[in-house]
């Protein structure tokens, strides 16, 4: 079982901010010492470029970089490290797909997405549909923020014209987990050619993931949401799918042979990694996945679900119907991104007043305006948990909310 008290000791931010109540891990997580050390070690001991230098420092950097690819591939159950492309973040991974798909799609083709997407998996496709004259279908959600009648809706939405279905594995607002494996098999049963893209930004950090088992074609996530450094993301794709796509950025590192007339490009994944990458970040990222593997993702998930149950019942005990939870109260189909409304208090006032008490939560639409529109709410407050979160964080949040209420109640 996870002991968050022990885990907190691995995170230097808690030494420097002993009273920190950090409940915004859905936005980005804190970093363990090992990750911070790996960054520093690269810059202090072997800060050379990768894939080019012939001297030992460069060889060490290249090995660190490519070893990291192997470890991260293993962490998500990829068939091979060649399927793991390093990007800056989930947003970039998804944009790479939206831009490279452009040449493969034709006017009249259809793209399907959902109302529970983060903007980074919504806007690139909306813009692509506009540019190319494609039809963009947005699957609606229930009042609890779950996809409506999945079987029925998919039957209607998916046809031979559907070229791409792109959806979140886990919502960054409600924590709702979509049954990806089932959804993929429904889609492929109707149209085996349809590409299925999964935004895994909120799933890989919080549960065991095996991309092959999920059955999707592409999968995107950000390492900064799973204890790693900012500036490192992954685009995983089945090798034969990645191979269909043209390069996105052109330049150094991604090219094989160049003439004045024509050039050829490296094989995947390097074809998609033009320019000098975030070497230190990539190397440190595998320290993050090692740390998580050490805990065990099943354990991490269980810990989070327990905290979520505790949070839901404590909020209810303290405030009854004054708190409205955005999302299902049944914890079996969701994880610990806990969004709520509190009386008539505006989420920005709540977050600001909690912030003044050292409690970090997020307020607003969480880059998920389509969901807020679907649920007819302006904005919400979101408290989110991770491996270092504990009951005291939730208790402090509740005390903080009482103070907010005393301050703002009319």
């Amino acid at each position, binding site marked *: 079982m996870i002991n968050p008290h022990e885990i907190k000791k691995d995170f230097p931010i808690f030494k420097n901010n002993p009273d920190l109540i950090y409940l915004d891990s859905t936005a980005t997580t804190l970093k363990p010492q090992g990750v911070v050390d790996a960054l520093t070690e690269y810059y202090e001991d072997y800060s050379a470029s990768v894939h080019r230098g012939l001297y030992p420092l460069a060889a060490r950097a290249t090995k660190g970089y490519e070893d990291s690819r192997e470890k991260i591939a293993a962490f998500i159950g990829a068939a091979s490290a060649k399927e793991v492309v390093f990007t800056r973040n989930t947003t970039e991974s998804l944009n790479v797909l939206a831009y490279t798909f452009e040449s493969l799609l034709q006017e009249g083709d259809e793209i399907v997405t959902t109302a529970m997407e983060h903007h980074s998996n919504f806007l690139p496709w909306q813009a692509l549909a506009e540019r190319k004259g494609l039809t963009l279908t947005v699957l609606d959600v229930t009042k609890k923020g779950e996809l409506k009648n999945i079987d029925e809706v998919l039957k209607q939405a998916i046809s031979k014209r559907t070229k791409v279905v792109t959806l979140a594995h886990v919502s960054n607002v409600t924590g709702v987990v979509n049954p990806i494996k089932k959804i993929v098999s429904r889609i492929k049963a109707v149209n085996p050619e349809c590409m299925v893209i999964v935004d895994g930004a909120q799933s890989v950090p919080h549960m065991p993931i095996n991309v092959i088992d999920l059955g999707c074609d592409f999968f995107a996530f950000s390492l900064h949401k799973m204890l790693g450094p900012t500036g490192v993301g992954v685009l995983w794709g089945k090798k034969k799918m990645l191979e269909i796509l043209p390069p996105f950025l052109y330049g150094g590192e991604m090219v094989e042979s160049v003439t004045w007339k024509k050039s050829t490009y490296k094989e995947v994944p390097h074809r998609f990694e033009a320019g000098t990458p975030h070497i230190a970040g990539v190397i440190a990222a595998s320290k993050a996945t090692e740390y998580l593997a050490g805990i065990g993702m099943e354990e991490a998930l269980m810990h989070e679900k327990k905290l979520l149950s505790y949070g839901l019942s404590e909020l209810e005990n303290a405030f009854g119907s004054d708190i409205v939870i955005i999302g299902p109260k049944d914890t079996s189909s969701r994880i610990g991104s806990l969004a709520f409304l509190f009386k008539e208090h*505006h989420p*920005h006032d709540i977050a*600001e007043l909690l912030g*003044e008490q050292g409690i970090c939560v997020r307020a*607003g639409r969480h880059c998920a305006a389509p969901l807020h529109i679907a649920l007819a709410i*302006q*904005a919400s407050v979101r408290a989110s948990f991770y491996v270092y979160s504990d009951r005291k964080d939730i208790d402090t949040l509740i005390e903080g909310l009482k103070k907010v209420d005393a301050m*703002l109640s*009319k």
Partner: protein
Amino acid sequence: MTIYQDIIVDHYRNPRNKGVLEDATISESLKNYSCGDTITVYLNVQDDTITDVRFKGSGCAISQAAASILLENIKGKSINEVKKLTYSDIQELLGVKLSPARVKCAELALKAVQKGVTK
């Protein structure tokens, strides 16, 4: 220091001049899209002077308190004086320095008033 100074909390809880002004000569609505704050201001202008004020709206404490405080302040002022007001005047009235994210909330009413009087 809290940004929720007494004056802000007071005006949020007990907004002055809240409501609709039936004989308004100017009315103007603005919305802050990022947070959903809305303000409608009603002004009665006679001979270049603002003789009466009201506002309607919903949103965060900062946006609503700032509207109440601003309107109270501009009653009796000339259109020219109102046009010259800037965010720093609002900041002075509120008595706090807000983070950039909240400045938008605090200046919403001023923007509505200035848009109304320059029409």
